[in-house]
């Protein structure tokens, strides 16, 4: 017993000494990228990828092995739920793969651990959508490459809008609201526009309105929610709930069937909803709805999401890993990848391909992507976003004053900080 106690004390003391001894390094940012050697890729490249990408990438990468006979790509599929934890553990244990897919909002955190390799000049920055490239940048250094992107648009029932007297897509804030209201009054729609009333990820629906109103919201070292532009956007967002245009308690999984039935006139979402709606609406439904860019106040700025590809400093096959990423972001490979898993290309040139430009809905996404924005890659963003979601819920459901909401978010954001 006494021996055990003594040992416990020893462990504590040791840990205390170790902690008092060393200070925190700077970590992340301001690094010089090493260049990548010439020639073809060789050896085994280990890759982690999530979701559908994880399932399909292994077969897709066979083409890369054909072009680079000395290289094999070994893909591990990781479920999204477990991915953050798995990557964090790998970084702590210094047992990382060569390449991993990384959600854009995790970029700041992982880059700050100092585990990611800065992007070499093998990759051409100008080929990508600027908003997507920005998600890879931490303290002016890029630590990854955008792989695929998505952005949010307004989905609306074209037929019901026409019935309500709106023959074309709403272009401004006022038009959007007028259309939603008119659909309720004239087309028998129960909810004119479904907006997310708080909960996880609602910031992705709210921030586009703030950005479209000229708000900066967040930079790498400053979070500024307490601004008149943000307050105005919040007030506009809230008005949909107070005027009973948006539901505050829509149960999970009822959005799509209600939209198909004509109970919901419009909603804000990403490209995956095109497939979902066609599936649920059946043949011919794709003629009944349309997508429109975010309505303009000062600009039309939506949210850009997606995933990046990063190489780890502990990679065993660094040069070939970057060559694999360079191959994945070639315009023609990006088009092929789109045809494989429906991931929208992060490379602008791919959008000229008829596979995308000939689509009914995609060109609208492509146009919106050019100006779409993402929050800066700061390590605390997920936490700031969660605080934001809670205040949005109060705004939408409990009628919290927009100015008070902005102030509450600001107070929390200040106490959380940017992790810098």
């Amino acid at each position, binding site marked *: 017993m006494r021996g055990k106690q003594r040992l416990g004390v020893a462990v504590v003391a040791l*840990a205390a000494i170790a902690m008092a001894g060393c200070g925190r390094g700077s970590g992340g940012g301001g690094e010089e990228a090493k260049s990548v050697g010439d020639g073809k890729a060789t050896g085994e490249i280990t890759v982690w990828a999530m979701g559908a990408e994880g399932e399909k990438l292994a077969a897709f990468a066979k083409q890369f092995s054909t072009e680079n006979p000395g290289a094999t790509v070994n893909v591990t599929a990781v479920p999204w739920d477990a991915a953050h934890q798995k990557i964090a553990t790998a970084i702590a244990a210094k047992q990382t793969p060569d390449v991993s897919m990384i959600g854009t909002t995790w970029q700041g955190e992982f880059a*700050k651990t100092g585990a990611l390799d800065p992007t070499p000049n093998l990759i051409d920055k100008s080929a990508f959508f600027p908003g997507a490239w920005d998600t890879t940048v931490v303290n002016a250094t890029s630590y990854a490459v955008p792989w695929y992107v998505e952005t949010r648009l307004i989905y609306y029932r074209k037929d019901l809008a026409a019935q309500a007297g709106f023959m074309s897509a709403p272009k401004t804030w006022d038009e959007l609201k007028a259309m939603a209201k008119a659909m309720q009054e004239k087309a028998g729609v129960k909810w004119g526009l479904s907006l997310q009333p*708080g909960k996880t990820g609602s910031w992705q629906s709210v921030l586009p309105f703030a950005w479209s109103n000229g708000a900066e919201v967040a930079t790498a070292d400053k979070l500024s929610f307490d601004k008149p532009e943000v307050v105005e956007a919040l007030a506009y967002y809230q008005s949909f709930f107070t005027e009973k245009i948006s539901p505050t*308690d829509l149960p999970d999984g009822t959005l799509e069937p209600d939209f198909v039935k004509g109970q919901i006139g419009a909603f804000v979402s990403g490209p995956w909803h095109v497939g979902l709606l066609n599936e649920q609406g059946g043949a011919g439904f794709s003629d009944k709805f349309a997508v429109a860019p975010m309505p303009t106040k000062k600009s039309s700025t939506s949210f850009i999401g997606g995933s990046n590809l990063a190489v780890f400093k502990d990679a065993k096959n660094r040069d070939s890993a970057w060559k694999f990423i360079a191959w994945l972001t070639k315009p023609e490979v990006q088009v092929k990848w789109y045809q494989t898993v429906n991931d929208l290309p992060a490379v602008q040139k791919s959008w000229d391909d008829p596979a995308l430009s000939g689509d009914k809905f995609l060109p609208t996404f492509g146009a919106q992507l050019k100006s779409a924005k993402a929050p800066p890659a700061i390590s605390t963003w997920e*936490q700031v976003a*969660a605080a934001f979601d809670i205040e949005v819920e109060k705004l939408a459901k409990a009628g919290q004053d927009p100015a008070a909401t902005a102030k509450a978010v600001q107070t929390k954001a200040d106490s959380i900080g940017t992790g810098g």
Partner: protein
Amino acid sequence: MATARVATVPAKQVGAQSPGRPAPVARTRPRWRQAVTGWAFAAPFSVLFLVFMAVPVVASLVMSLTDLRATDLRHPFGVNFVGLDNYAKLFSDGLFRRAAVNTLIFVAIGVPLTIVTGLAAASALNSGLVRLRALFRVGFYLPVVTSIVAIAVIWRFLLDPGAGLVDNLLALVGIDGPNWLFDTSLALPSLIVMATWRNFGFLMVIFLAGLQSIPIHLYEAAKLDGAGRWQQFRHVTLPMLRPTLLFGGVVTGIGYLQLFEEPFVMTQGGPLSSTLSVSYHIYNQFGFGNYGYAAAASYVLFVAIVGLSLLQFRLLGSRD
């Protein structure tokens, strides 16, 4: 060979331990060997305990005194010691206070409710009020062994405002049923009822065993003294059942203070954080990478659990 040597040790020991005799010099060696042998036997457990229990516990305690974040993963010793700052921050965090209040309400109502329900079910089954006893016993116990995910799906259907059974039943008697899980004042009570339903079967089984161990002659004596059913319950059953009740209370209290699964699968802590529990808050903070802060919150929860258990031992423990 080793076993043979061990077997001889107790034999020598018996002779050596005659009372009052001063220790002979030669005895120190066998004793030293005995200690080694003892530790050798205890080594597998001790090593496992030290590596997988003691070290992580100590490490997490140290962690709660630092500002360790997910971004420090590669250099965990580069963090700063912040003393009790995490604990101070905890109590000034509105969300943590909200979670603490929610958890306390859940425990204060949920634990007694579960115990009373479990005791009522056990008494009913025990006194032969109910036919098909085995069937009911299985039925009441089933929720305990059913996956929370399956239960959550069923309860979400039950509580659905449009298609739900509960609101449809209320509609039959002319009441316009509320949207249970989306109402800030009803979501937590809904979870309490669901948790009670899910857990009382376990207590019922424990209480049944306790009831059956009460000697029948005590009831006969009470009857001769003219005690009615309620008086028998009050003056015979309850006192005899006190150790069982204590066990039930402590186990349920520990489980309920760590409330997590129900809000996680049913409400995600909403609406408006009205079902956020302390464990859920800790889970979120670990998710955000605030390891030091989350560890501090875990220790506060730990102290609360110890406190509640001690309180129950005081209230229900033996009074002899």
